[in-house]
C-alpha cells in the first residue's frame, strides 16, 4: 500500500514541473504587461520597475530563478501588491476557498448520497423520480444561473439570508455553499443510485437477507458500500471541479478567496500570482486525486488485497 502511494507521489513531481513550465511561458506571451497604467509611465520608471522584478533578464534566467526560489517554497513577490509575497496572498485567500469547498463538498456528499440511496432503495417510484429530477436540475442549471437565482429569491425578495461576504454577517455562508454544492450533489446522487442498484442485485445481498439480517444492517453495511466506491472515486475530479466552480461563486458572492484572487491576477497580469496560484492548485489537485484513489482502492476489498499482497 505504501509503495503504491510513494510511486504515485514520485510520478506527481514531473507532472507538477510540466504544469509550472507550461504556465510560466504561457503567461509571458500574454499581451499587456503588469505595469501598464492609464497615465503613461515614464521610461526610466518602467525600467526601474522591470528591474525590481527581474523582468529585464532573459526569459530562461527568470525561469531558473523562479524554480530555485520555488525549491525553497518561495513563490515570489506579487506584481500587483508591492510588499506582499505570493505566499502571503495565497495564505490569505486559502481559508475562505477551503471552507467554501468543504461546505460544498459536505452538502454534495451528504445530500447526494441520501438522495441517491433513497432513489436506489425505491426504484421507479416517486422517491426515485423526485430526487433524480432534482439531481438533473442541479446538473443542468449552471452555477452562474443558480447562484443569482438563489440570491434573488432568498436574499432579495424573501430577505432570509445575506447576499454577499463571507464571515461578515451570520448566515452569509449558506447561499454560496449551496450554490457550489448543488451541482456536485446531483452527480453524487446519480453515482450513488447507480452503485447501490448494482450492489443490490448481487448475490451476497440476497444471502445476507436470507440469513435474517435486519434490513437496516443490510443497507448500511453492504449496499451503501456499493454506492460509496464510485462516489469516492469521483471525489478527485469533484474537487477539481469545485475549485473551478469557486471562481464563479466567489465572484458572484464577493468572497475573498483564492479563486477570485486568481481571476484578478489574470486580468492584472500579476505573473507571479498567476503562476503561484496555478502551481498551488495543481499540487492540491494532484494530492487530492491521490487521496481519493487510495481511498477508493482501500474500500474495494479486491483491490486492497492485491495492493497489500504486493507491499
Amino acid at each position: 500500500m505504501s509503495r503504491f502511494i510513494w510511486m504515485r507521489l514520485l510520478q506527481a513531481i514531473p507532472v507538477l514541473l510540466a504544469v509550472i513550465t507550461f504556465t510560466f511561458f504561457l503567461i509571458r506571451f500574454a499581451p499587456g504587461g503588469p505595469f501598464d497604467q492609464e497615465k503613461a509611465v515614464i521610461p526610466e520608471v518602467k525600467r526601474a520597475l522591470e528591474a525590481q522584478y527581474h523582468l529585464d533578464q532573459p526569459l530562461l534566467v527568470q525561469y531558473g530563478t523562479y524554480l530555485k526560489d520555488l525549491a525553497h517554497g518561495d513563490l515570489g513577490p506579487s506584481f500587483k501588491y508591492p510588499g506582499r509575497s505570493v505566499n502571503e496572498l495565497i495564505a490569505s485567500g486559502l481559508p475562505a476557498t477551503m471552507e467554501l469547498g468543504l461546505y460544498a463538498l459536505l452538502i454534495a456528499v451528504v445530500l447526494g448520497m441520501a438522495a441517491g440511496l433513497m432513489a436506489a432503495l425505491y426504484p421507479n417510484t416517486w422517491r426515485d423520480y423526485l430526487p433524480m429530477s432534482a439531481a438533473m436540475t442541479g446538473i443542468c442549471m449552471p452555477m452562474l444561473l443558480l447562484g443569482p437565482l438563489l440570491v434573488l429569491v432568498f436574499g432579495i425578495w424573501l430577505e432570509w439570508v445575506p447576499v454577499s461576504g463571507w464571515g461578515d454577517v451570520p448566515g452569509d455562508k449558506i447561499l454560496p455553499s449551496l450554490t457550489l454544492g448543488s451541482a456536485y450533489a446531483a452527480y453524487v446522487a446519480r453515482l450513488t443510485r447507480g452503485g447501490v442498484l448494482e450492489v443490490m442485485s448481487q448475490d451476497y445481498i440476497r444471502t445476507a437477507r436470507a440469513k435474517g439480517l435486519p434490513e437496516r444492517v443490510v443497507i448500511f453495511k453492504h449496499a451503501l458500500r456499493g454506492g460509496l466506491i464510485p462516489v469516492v472515486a469521483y471525489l478527485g475530479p469533484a474537487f477539481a471541479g469545485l475549485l473551478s466552480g469557486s471562481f464563479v461563486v466567489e465572484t458572484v458572492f464577493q468572497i475573498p478567496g483564492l479563486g477570485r484572487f486568481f481571476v484578478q491576477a489574470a486580468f492584472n497580469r500579476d505573473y507571479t500570482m498567476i503562476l503561484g496560484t496555478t502551481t498551488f492548485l495543481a499540487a492540491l489537485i494532484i494530492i487530492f486525486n491521490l487521496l481519493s484513489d487510495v481511498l477508493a482502492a482501500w474500500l474495494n476489498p479486491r483491490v486492497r488485497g492485491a495492493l497489500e499482497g504486493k507491499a
Partner: protein
Amino acid sequence: MSATVEDVARYERGTSLWQDAWVRLKRNRLAVIGGITLIVIGLLCVVGPWFIHYGYEQQDLVLGPAPPSAAHWLGTDPFGRDLLVRILYGGRVSLMVGFIATAVALLIGVTWGATAGYIGGRLDAVMMRIVDILYALPFMIFVVLLTVVFGRSMVLLFLAIGAVEWLTMARIIRGQVQALRQQEFVEAAISLGLSRAAIIARHVIPNALGPLIVYTTLTIPSVMLLEAFISFLGLGVQPPASSWGSLISDGVETMEEYPWLLIFPGIVLSVTLFALNFLGDGLRDALDVRSSRD
C-alpha cells in the same frame, strides 16, 4: 401473445447493434423528448431570426428596458434591443461553440487515443502521461489563461475549450482500441495485409463509436457551460454579439430591476442542457451492450 410469422422472420434475420439501440432509444420517452426539444430549439435559432423584424443589435434607446409585451414578446434590454432575437442569435453562438468545440475535442481525442492505443508500448505510455498532466490543471485556470493570452477571438475560444475537453475522449478511445487490438479479427486483418490506418478506420473506430457517441452528447452541455462561465467572467463573446452565457451574465447585473433579462435566457439554456443530458443518458442506456436483450 403468439409470435407472428414476421416476428420469427425478424428474429432469424437478427438485428444489428444499431437497430437494437434505435428501438431502445425510441422507447425512452425522456430521451425522445430531449431529442425533439433539441431539434426545435436548433431550428428556432437558425431560422427564427429571419422571421423577426428586429435586428439583434438594433437599439431603441427611447424605449429602453421593457418587460414582455405584444411588440417584444420577451421584453427588451437596457438598449431597447429585443430579447427574443438576442436569445435566438445567442443560441446560434452557444450551440455553435458547443458543437464545434466538441468536434475539435473529438478530433484531437480520437486521434490521440487511437494512436496511443494502437501503437502501444513507449509511445502509449508517454502520450497517456501527457493526458494525466493536463488532467491536473483545473479546467477553469487553463481556459482563463488561454483566453487571457490569446485574446478574445471566437476561433480561439473554440480551440481553448476543445483543447480542454479532449482528454476523456482520448482515454475512452485508447481503452477501446487496446481491447480491440487483441481481438482475432484484427489479427486476421493484419495477416490479410491491411494497412494500420485502414484497420483503425474500418474496424477499430466503428466499434468504439458507441461510447464515443454517448460521451460526445454529454460533452456538448459541458462545453456550453464552460463557454457560459467564461462569458460570465468577462472573457468570451464580444458585443454586440451575444451568447446565452453573456446574456445571463448581463441579466445578473440588473436582475432586480429587470428580472426577465435573467429568467428567459436562463430557462432556454437550462432546457437545452436538460435535453442534451436526457438524450445522452438515453443513448448510453440504448447502446449499453451489457444490458442484453432478454
